[in-house]
């Protein structure tokens, strides 16, 4: 069964437009459907003009942080005596997120074209696709796509007769959520444990092997060909101001039609749940939503009547994150959810920063105690206090990513903790 959905009128298919074509992973198919038109157009543009076009598109990083892509590209020093490197973050590991799989499986050449255009923009001639080890089948698909592109002159020396060279390789990780964090990823790429680096210097200046490095997510690179082909303004117009284009939204949890859907930025969240994803099974009520991967503060049902773009989500105290939207119905036990989220972060903390390493473990123990029926009333405040002590006190965002959803669950769903206390008191009586 394919991972993409039958086209729906509710979707706006831009980066996913080729999904469903026969042999969509083949270069010939891609070339027959606008493939490499953007590359040839970019060849006629100056690097500054390419970066300007990406800025105009209002594309923001699709990995999670949502940083403006054009601005990130402009930070890479093209006049550096050191060669520039491009790194593709295909370490998709944020719980709730499963979109990069589709882009690599069904349209690998679109991503390759996006990487080449980035190469033109920052004057780089080599790229590494860092893919999580569990995605071996995608590494194989990508290796085949790279071999095909090399064989047909779309990678290597003198690309498409332009006299311009670019080499692109896959690189396998081996199981570590932390390596999705860009500086930890770079350490991993260098053959080390994936430990985050102190910033500055930022990767744009000193990244992989201390070379100037441009690092973006799979979906970010995949959005580049349509932006250059049809113009940044057209892409921007699909979304809301400063939130350009579409994004692949991964809907999971308690919905009738879970799936990965391409929706414009600013798409109403409730419409995504009830129309795109077919609503909640059994007609149950909505209780909570993880808007963009498990690192995001959860929203209560009454907070979900909002358009989904980076700025609106920030305004309601959460994040659009990586596009992993997890829907929870009224029967969901939020204490169990908090425990499962914390078990994840405690497992994945790299151990470098003490507030994260100790904090996630303590929080996991307290939440486990709760789920085991041994929770104490004072634990509710303790969970919040411990979490808040982690915020902003770590090298990378993993500490915050563990603390933020916990704080939101403790504050917004206190009644679920109360239920455990009531059950315990009844046993005691």
């Amino acid at each position: 069964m394919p991972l993409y959905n039958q086209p729906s009128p509710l979707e706006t298919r831009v980066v996913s437009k080729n999904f469903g074509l026969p042999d969509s992973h083949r270069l010939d198919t891609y070339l027959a459907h606008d493939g490499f038109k953007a590359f040839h157009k970019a060849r006629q543009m100056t690097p500054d003009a390419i970066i300007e076009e990406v800025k105009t598109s209002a594309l923001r990083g699709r990995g999670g942080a949502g940083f403006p892509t054009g601005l990130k590209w402009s930070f890479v020093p093209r006049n550096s005596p050191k060669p520039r490197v491009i790194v593709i973050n295909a370490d998709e590991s944020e719980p709730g997120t499963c979109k990069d799989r589709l882009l690599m499986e069904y349209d690998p050449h679109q991503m390759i074209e996006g990487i080449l255009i980035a190469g033109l923009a920052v004057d780089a001639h080599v790229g590494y696709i860092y893919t999580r080890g569990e995605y071996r089948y995608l590494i194989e698909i990508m290796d085949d796509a790279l071999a095909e592109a090399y064989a047909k002159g779309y990678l290597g020396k003198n690309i498409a007769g332009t006299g311009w060279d670019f080499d692109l390789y896959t690189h396998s990780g081996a199981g570590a959520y932390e390596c999705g964090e860009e500086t930890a990823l770079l350490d991993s790429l260098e053959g080390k444990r994936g430990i985050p680096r102190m910033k500055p210097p930022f990767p744009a200046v000193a990244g992989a092997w201390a070379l100037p490095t441009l690092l973006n997510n799979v979906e970010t690179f995949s959005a580049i060909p349509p932006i250059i082909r049809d113009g940044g303004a057209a892409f921007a117009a699909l979304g809301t101001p400063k939130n350009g284009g579409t994004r692949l939204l991964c809907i999971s949890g308690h919905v009738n039609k879970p799936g990965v859907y391409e929706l414009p930025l600013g798409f109403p969240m409730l419409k995504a749940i009830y129309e795109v994803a077919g609503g909640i099974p059994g007609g149950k009520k909505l209780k909570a939503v993880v808007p963009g991967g498990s690192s995001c503060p959860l929203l209560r049902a009454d907070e979900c009547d909002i358009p989904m773009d980076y700025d609106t989500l920030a305004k309601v105290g959460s994040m659009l994150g990586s596009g992993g939207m997890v829907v929870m119905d009224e029967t969901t036990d939020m204490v169990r959810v908090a425990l499962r989220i914390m078990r994840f972060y405690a497992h994945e903390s790299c151990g470098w920063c003490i507030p994260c390493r100790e904090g996630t473990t303590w929080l996991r123990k307290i939440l486990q105690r709760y789920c085991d029926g041994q929770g104490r009333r004072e634990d509710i405040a303790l969970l919040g206090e411990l979490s808040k002590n982690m915020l902003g006190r770590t090298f990378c965002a993993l500490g915050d990513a563990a603390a933020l959803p916990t704080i939101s669950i403790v504050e917004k769903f206190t009644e679920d903790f109360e239920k455990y206390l009531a059950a315990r008191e009844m046993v005691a009586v």
Partner: protein
Amino acid sequence: MTFSPQLEQRFAKMLTLYPPGRKRSAVVPMLIYAQDEVGAVTKELIDEVARRCGVTPLQVDEVVGYYSMLHRKPLGKFHVQVCTNISCLLVGGEELYEHAKKKLGIGHREVTPDGQFSLEEVECIGACSWAPAIEINYDFHHFVTPEKLDQLIDGLRKAQ
């Protein structure tokens, strides 16, 4: 220590992909591909990877402990990885994992006595919209029910 011709070819290419003097970059991919062939990250393999990448065995050893897919002891021929993270949890992932434990008679990171199966409760494998999901070795299986899991395991047993 030598590997299959295909793997030797892969490793020879791998050592040329990185900037000059940066062979250490091949450590993690070399370990995972070699583990697939050898069965586990043994002391001998650590020394071999260190030699090929021009680093000390300690620099390889410290990496092994960090990455969850690297194992010092052999796993089963079929490594069953059940995701119980948030999206899977909501639609029966934990129950599926409990079922797998019973079906195989083993727990987390344990191997059946005949060496055919091993089990691991894993973190998000990127199959959230098709949950609950499992991975057997590198093959994804989506919308897995206890019955479907039984069929998969019985099918693999029979194929032996």
